[in-house]
């Protein structure tokens, strides 16, 4: 564990500031499939964004733009809730 820090250098009580905190990629959790969108169909209802358990639906301002596949775990919920079937789960 040599790369991890020693006790003198840890924040008091282990209080973590989100800014500097490490984030683990969870793309590897996907079990073979990932979401893909056909933007031409998307009506920007944002339901996929609301339901995504991994905050992996990306917006610019209030517009759906796609998926952050670094964190998407491939659950398929977005595809299931999309009212216009703009999202499909496709093999990796």
């Amino acid at each position, binding site marked *: 564990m040599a790369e991890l820090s020693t006790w003198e250098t*840890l924040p008091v009580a*282990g209080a*973590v500031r*989100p800014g500097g*905190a*490490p*984030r*683990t*990629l*969870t793309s590897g*959790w*996907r*079990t073979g499939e990932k979401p893909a969108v056909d933007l031409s169909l998307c009506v920007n*209802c*944002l*339901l996929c*964004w*609301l*339901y*995504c*358990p*991994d*905050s*992996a639906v990306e*917006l610019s301002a*209030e517009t759906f733009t796609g998926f*952050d596949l*670094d*964190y*998407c*775990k*491939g*659950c*398929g*919920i977005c*595809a*299931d*809730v999309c009212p216009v079937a703009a999202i499909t*789960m496709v093999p990796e």
Partner: protein
Amino acid sequence: MSRLKTIVRNQRGVQPLRGGHSLCQGCGIPMVVRTVLSTIRLPVVVVNATGCLEVATTRFPGTAWNVPWLHVAFENAAAVASGVESAQRALRRRHALPAGQEVAVVVFAGDGGTYDIGLQALSGALERGHRFLFVCYDNEAYMNPGVQRSGATPFGASTTTSPAGLESFGKAQRRKDMTAIAIAHHVPYVAQAASTHWHDLSVKVERAVAAHGPAFLNVLTDCPVGWGHEPQLSRRVIDAAVETCFWPLYEVVEGHYRLTYEPQHAPVDEWLCSQQRFAHLFRPENAELIRRIQEQVDSDWAALVGRCDGTARSTDP
């Protein structure tokens, strides 16, 4: 502007709970967290009871939380929130807080941390009248330590401590009616909601935060792992709970009951058959049990409707 757009706007480009956590694929909890926190316009402080949400989002030295977040233990979230809220009151009274700065104190606790080991702290906080919002994400079992029975586990469900077996049909008792217990505390706002009925939930959050005193939200939230369903089916499973009247959506404002959604009164099988934990109930010898469940649902529904003023005014879009 649509409520969902408002929700997006409220969070000002920062997801309160970001990706990179280790909640299971398809876990139902994050959608509740997002709907609740992004509906609230005030800055928030989150108090979290031990459970899946807490354990899976804050492994040191990482964190998935972009808002102030506090975890002390499993059973005391409401007490911790009482302390935060009292400090806020004291500091404001002493002008030690930036004038006008109001912070919403929001608790997230699972059913275990609400119905069972967390009940007493919650009850005390409700009685004292602290101004905070307690959100129970009710996935009907102790999921974090491995799907054990809780007071919220429904009659007949198989869990690792109430397993179906040669001489057992799963949990032998009916679920504790936590929403009714909260209502009995005569607090300004109590509501029952469901994770995927996001609009209804969001409206309730708004009313809860506006209430002058404690508010309690009991939100049915699916757990694909503990319930035994495919992760992408969250919405269908939760909808089944609502449409079969197993989980009525309603609110009680200053004592007045109101249904917020009129369900289809589908047979309870539709809810039971959607999950592995109920599979054993469909064995021929258990038909009787399903009948009992249906009866219970019917009589609970009748009792609830009896208390409601008028009929459902839906808060769903």
